Every structure is written in C-alpha cells, then in structure tokens.
C-alpha cells in the first residue's frame, strides 16, 4: 500500500471512531473530576485490569469471576433465544404461507408484541417456580416476535416469479421449500434473528437484576450493593462490547447468505 493511501485510510476510517472514544473518555474524566462518587477512567482501568486478570475464579455461589458471569448470561440468552428460533421461525413460515393463520395470529401478535418482556417475568416465576428458567422464559418471549414477524414477511414477499418457476418445473413441496421458499426468506429471517438477539441481550441484564444468580445483570446489582462503582462502569462496557460482538456476528452471517 502506498503511503498516501495509508494516510487516507487512517484519516477516513480509523481516526473518526478513535476520536469519538477519546471524546467520551475525556468527558468522563472531566465529570469524574467534579464528582466524588464517580471514579475516573484511570481508576476504572486499573480495576478492570485486576478484574480480568482472574476472570474464572469461584468463591462460592455469589462470588464468581466476571468470565463466569458473562458466560452464564450468554448461556441464558442462547437457550431462550434458541427456543424462540425453534418455535418462531417455523411459525413465521406458516403464518406467511397461510392467510387464515396470518389473520388468526395477527391480533395476538399486535397485542403481545408491545408488552415489556419483564412483565412476563412473574408469570415465568409462577409457572417454573425457579429463577433461572424464568429468566430464560423472558428472553424467549422477547426474542420470538421479531423472528415470527420477519420470517412471515419474507415468505409473504416471495416474488410470484419464483413460484411460477416452481409451478412450471412442477417441483415437489419439499423442493419448493428447500430450493425456493427457504433461501428466499433467509435474509428476512436473519434480520429477525439480528433484531431478536439485540433485544434478548438488552433484556437479560434487567431480568438477571430481578432474578439474581450468576450473571452479568445480577453482578451489576451486586456491585451496586457493594458500592463498587468502577465495576458497574466496567459492566456497562462489557455488556456493550458483548452486544456489539453478537450483532457483528449476525451481520457477518447475514452477509454470507445475502445474494
């Protein structure tokens, strides 16, 4: 690469985001100067180094390393999210394919979709009589809607041309599904999955604050009770970074399957 190109790349793609981060840290540093309670960037950094030097320790059920907390949260999200995909995606296909089912479910979906997922937590606790499945249930209910809605939309927007091709070739129902319906719907489906993982990760922190146990959400609450503000700030960054990585993973996945 030539030096001019390198320079241009630095100024257009590398510099702006770095500047943004620097601005945030600067602002935070200034604010920390004026407030006793808010720890500054440097203090938080030292705390983070210490925290991440031993992420996988276990001192009893309520004192575990940050790594375990993140992994536990991710596991809950994966379970709830996986169950939602298992049910939501086939349901989306059916709703998109059959008008009757579409009309039958559309008032239910419109009614239930805007409900805050946390409102479902008591129901989960009541039914499962345990905190962990209740948290998973909340993730399930929060991530199922985008999957149903986007999959159904993808099926509905299937171009008539493709179906005409299927008709002229007289493809079997199975071949229509595997060769036409599924690939045509896949980008929409992945959009739904991406939206769902975003909400699921948002919701898990709040759900864990309420249910307790090992997890990043409860960890935040625990550190609040310990008045360890550095750790809360670290948790905010951790939640943000993990969410960003999940999103990027799905963007990458969607790119691989777009045509």
């Amino acid at each position, binding site marked *: 690469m030539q030096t001019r190109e390198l320079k241009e790349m630095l100024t257009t793609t590398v510099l702006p985001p770095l500047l943004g981060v620097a601005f945030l840290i600067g602002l935070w540093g200034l604010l920390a100067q004026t407030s006793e309670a808010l720890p500054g960037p440097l203090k938080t950094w030292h705390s983070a180094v210490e925290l991440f030097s031993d992420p996988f320790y276990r001192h009893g059920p309520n004192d575990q390393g940050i790594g375990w907390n993140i992994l536990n949260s991710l596991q809950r999200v994966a379970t709830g999210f996986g169950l939602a995909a298992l049910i939501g995606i086939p349901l989306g296909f059916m709703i998109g394919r059959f008008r009757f089912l579409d009309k039958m479910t559309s008032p239910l979906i419109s009614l239930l979709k805007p409900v805050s997922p946390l409102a479902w937590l008591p129901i989960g606790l009541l039914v499962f009589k345990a905190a962990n499945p209740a948290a998973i249930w909340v993730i399930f209910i929060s991530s199922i809607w985008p999957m149903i809605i986007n999959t159904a939309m993808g099926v509905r927007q299937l171009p008539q*041309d*493709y179906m*005409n*091709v299927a*008709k*002229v*070739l*007289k*493809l079997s129902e199975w071949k229509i599904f595997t*060769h*036409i319906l599924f*690939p*045509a719907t896949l980008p929409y489906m992945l959009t739904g999955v991406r939206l769902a993982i975003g909400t699921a990760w948002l919701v898990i922190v709040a759900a864990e604050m309420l249910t307790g146990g090992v997890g990043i959400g409860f960890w935040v609450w625990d550190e609040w009770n310990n008045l360890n503000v550095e750790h809360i700030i670290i948790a905010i960054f951790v939640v943000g970074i993990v969410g960003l990585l999940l999103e990027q993973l799905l963007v990458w996945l969607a790119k691989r399957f777009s*045509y």
Partner: protein
Amino acid sequence: MKRYVQVENARMVFNTRQGEFVALRDIELNIERGEFVSLIGHSGCGKSTLLNLIAGLLLPSSGNLFCAGREIAGPGPDRAVVFQNHSLLPWMTCFENIHLGVERVFGATEDKAKLRQRTLDALALVHLSHAEKKYPHEISGGMKQRVGIARALAMQPKVLLMDEPFGALDALTRAHLQDELMKIVAETRSTVVMVTHDVDEAVLLSDRIVMMTNGPAATIGEILDVDLPRPRNRLALANDAHYHQLRGAVLEFLYQKHAHKEAA
C-alpha cells in the same frame, strides 16, 4: 403433425373487485410442430394471458387447450416458460439454475453424469459455458436471459413459451439475442410461442404473427404468415421489399385498425 398446440374457443374471465373482467374471448389458434408463432398487440390486449393459458399457469374460464393431443390442465415442464425478467433463482449458480429443471425432467431415468452433461450442453448452446459457476447477479441482463432460455431448452419442452423475453434488454443486446435464438430454434427445431410488442422482432423471428385486438374482451384480429425464407439475416432484410411489406401489415393492424384508445 398438424395442430400441435390447439386453443379451442377459449375465454378468460377474471373476477375483480369491480366485477367480472373479460380478458379474452373466442380464441381459436392452432400451432404446428416446429412453428414459431408470435403474439403481438398493445399492452393490456391479453397476449400474456393467452401465453399463460398455454403454459397452464392460468386455466380458461371456458374452452379447451391441448398440447400434443393432451388437455392442458396445469403447468408442466413440457411447456417451458422463459419469463420476461429471467426469473433465475439468485441463490443458485447458472449451472444449478439449469440443473434444477434438468433434474426434474430427466432425474428419474438418467444418472448424475448424464444430467450434468445435459446442463453443460444447455449452457454451451447459449455460449455461456464460462459462466457455469457464476451467480445471476454476477452476469449481465442479456446473459441472464440466455440462462433463462437455456433452462427452458434443457428440459426439452414440447413447446417453448417466451413472455417478452428480450423486452428488458437494450437494443444491441436484444438484436444479438434474437440472432442467437434464431440459430438455436433452427438447431433444436423447437416449437415456440412468443409474446412481443416489438414489430421488427415479430417479423424477423416468426413463421406466423398472431395480432390481437385491444382489450377488454380481446381476441385474435388477424394472423399474418411470414413467408420470408430461412435462415434470415437482419442486414439483408433491412433492404428487402417483402420484409417491409410484412412489417407494414403489422404496423397497419396495430396503429390504424386497432389503434390504442389512449394513444388515439
């Protein structure tokens, strides 16, 4: 071998919100084996509807259609369609798009190597062997349409149905593909029904031109025999008096006898 495709007193009525809409009435048409027939008319004259009836994508409200002595009761690979906007499946390569049809038609009787060979032959026929592994979005509009034609021909249909196959292409690409189509049809002796709104295209390619009156309730107005000798050459025809006479006849039908109401 007469009357390979037969349309008997076909009538097509659509139920719309404003009530019944008669698209086609009293359609009588016989097409011989190996014949190239064009359907021409103003937009909304039901020429695509007639093609879809032969394809079996639509069923007539009354009347009967036959292909090779059998009633047309639905779509099938024996009446392959080349769609206006190519309709290739974007998630499959050119090879896979063609192979899908080949597998459907010959999969039960032939082994994998033979199916593969048929697909490659079809690609070679439209001079696209080099694009075998390309996806539709990686090739030009003209190439996509050629893959569409190859897909249809690879199924060895009894009739090749084309719905304005070159309508979306630029003039130069269109001319090039028309020449190629003429060669392919001569080679494969296909029976072709083509919908077009291009007078030059109709005269250049067809053995007969079916001219349709304006809708609603459109029907066949006149049928013109194009008795130009084959092989035809567009440059030679440009100075051919008989070509211009035939062209004039189609133009007269379209713009004098049945001028479009909005245009008039």
